[in-house]
């Protein structure tokens, strides 16, 4: 039958994770419609319409949907699911917030964070922080699936020419209200889509040193900056930079781990990177077991040298 892809966006731009989830959806087989729920999100709907293999874009506009809070977004999706047998979303914080709510409303067990599409109802997904991979087959009449975006390439826009249809947003009452976003301002690439990531751990020692040591190298490389959980817990970096099982899962071309020991939960978030470099004073650190290139040394000496030679 058909697949509904719940688009992740900020009312202005369609996100890279959505393009990756589209690739996963295409592998499941079936017609794909993209749902753009938001406010003033015409540009997002237009961007979705030119994606390859999209049958239609469904646009829902309302004040309640502006920030895609779970209650109104789930009510809207539930009202549309009569026409679909599969619901897909990228496993962004919005997807992870909204989709289980829809799944329960549909009496469906969700399949979270798939990394591979084996068949229309069969998927691989990591469990135990990526220390095991489970293959599961869904037996429910409908399927609700979130996609670990690091595992799929982004669909290339331009080939599609889908119609944009408007639908009325369901009224979900006054359960939740948006107050504010406190977003980190940065000119750097997004962690999830960056080709290079320079990541720092507790060894950086303070938020000033975290900035002053990693930023010059990241700037030279055009890289995103990431952090270990230890660095975030110590207040050296904001939470949205955390790479790991419970933070962001990334798979860049190059991941440079600086002063990160390599706890299981951090490795779960970056071990699918194409090339991993580890810089650490402790040559026994577990990070060296996954690193393609290891450099035993003090990052406060190594990183300035690296920056100078780039």
């Amino acid at each position, binding site marked *: 039958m058909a697949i509904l892809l719940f688009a992740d966006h900020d009312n202005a731009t369609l996100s890279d994770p959505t393009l990756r989830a589209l690739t996963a959806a295409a592998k499941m087989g079936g017609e794909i419609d993209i749902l753009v729920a938001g406010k003033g999100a015409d540009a997002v709907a237009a961007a979705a319409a030119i994606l390859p293999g999209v049958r239609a874009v469904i646009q829902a506009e309302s004040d309640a949907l502006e920030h895609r809070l779970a209650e109104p977004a789930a009510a809207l999706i539930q009202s549309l699911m009569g026409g679909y047998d599969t619901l897909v979303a990228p496993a962004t914080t919005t997807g992870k917030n909204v989709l289980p*709510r829809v799944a329960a409303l549909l009496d469906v067990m969700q399949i979270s964070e798939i990394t591979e599409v084996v068949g229309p109802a069969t998927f691989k997904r990591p469990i135990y922080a990526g220390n*095991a991979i489970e293959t599961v087959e869904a037996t429910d009449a409908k399927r609700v699936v979130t996609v670990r975006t690091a595992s799929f390439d982004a669909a290339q826009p331009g080939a599609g020419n889908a119609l944009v249809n408007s639908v009325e947003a369901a009224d979900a009452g006054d359960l939740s209200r948006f107050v504010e976003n406190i977003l980190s301002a940065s000119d750097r690439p997004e962690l999830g889509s960056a080709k*290079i990531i320079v990541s720092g751990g507790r060894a950086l020692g303070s938020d000033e040193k975290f900035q002053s040591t990693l930023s010059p190298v990241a700037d030279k490389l055009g890289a995103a900056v990431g952090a270990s959980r230890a660095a975030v817990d110590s207040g050296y970096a904001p939470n949205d930079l955390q790479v790991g099982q419970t933070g962001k899962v990334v798979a860049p071309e190059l991941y440079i781990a600086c002063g990160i020991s390599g706890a299981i939960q951090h490795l779960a978030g970056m071990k699918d990177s194409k090339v991993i470099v580890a810089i650490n004073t402790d040559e026994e650190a577990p990070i060296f077991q996954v690193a393609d*290139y290891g450099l035993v040394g003090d990052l406060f000496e190594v990183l300035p040298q690296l920056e100078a030679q780039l």
Partner: protein
Amino acid sequence: MKVLVPVKRVVDHNVKIRVKADGSGVDLANVKMSMNPFDEIAVEEAVRLKESGAASEIVAVSVGPAQAQDVLRTALAMGADRAILITAEGTVEPLAVAKLLAAVVREENPGLVVLGKQAIDDDCNQTGQMLSALLGWSQGTFASKVEIAGERAKITREVDGGLQAIDISLPAVVTADLRLNEPRYASLPNIMKAKKKPLDQKTPADFGVDIAPRLKVLGVEEPAGRAAGVKVGSVSELLDKLRNEAAVI
């Protein structure tokens, strides 16, 4: 206000798990089990709400085998007042757990349910959202701050770009993220006291909930390993490798 705190018994987060040779699952025989770390944060938050006067009673609930009593005793030692164990063997999926919790909520009428955002075994991140949907309540997921104000609560959430503050009506389901608080260790006197606190035992049948799994596990495998790397002696050697061997810069 009564607060309900669902907790899950999982493999201890320090254990390096092994996949069974026949690919049927993960070897859990003789492995240390503990309370899911995110649920510990949820228990701590409930206890702090009680200490601040916002909560009056804390009820901990777990769905699992008889040994899940241990994690309920831990919750009681941290400050929960009483506990309910719904005994069930084998895998109980988040949807079934959410249905059982919804049944408990209808009996207990709490003003707030606080639980971890995900369990570190199945990594599903679903139960709280599903429970909220089944109850028709509001949800505040991935919370790093919870402020109760009368009939509503302000929840600060960890989102992809930073933080998001929302204002939700009560009753509500809140799921705890890492930085909501640092859970306390239970003191020995409190561990002793916890042994005397009430712990009710129920079964899924008592609530009329079908817990048959909806997902069929076809196999479990080890993740693909990474080939061993090399140590380099200097920054210039590293850059040479990155430029000419790996060709990533």
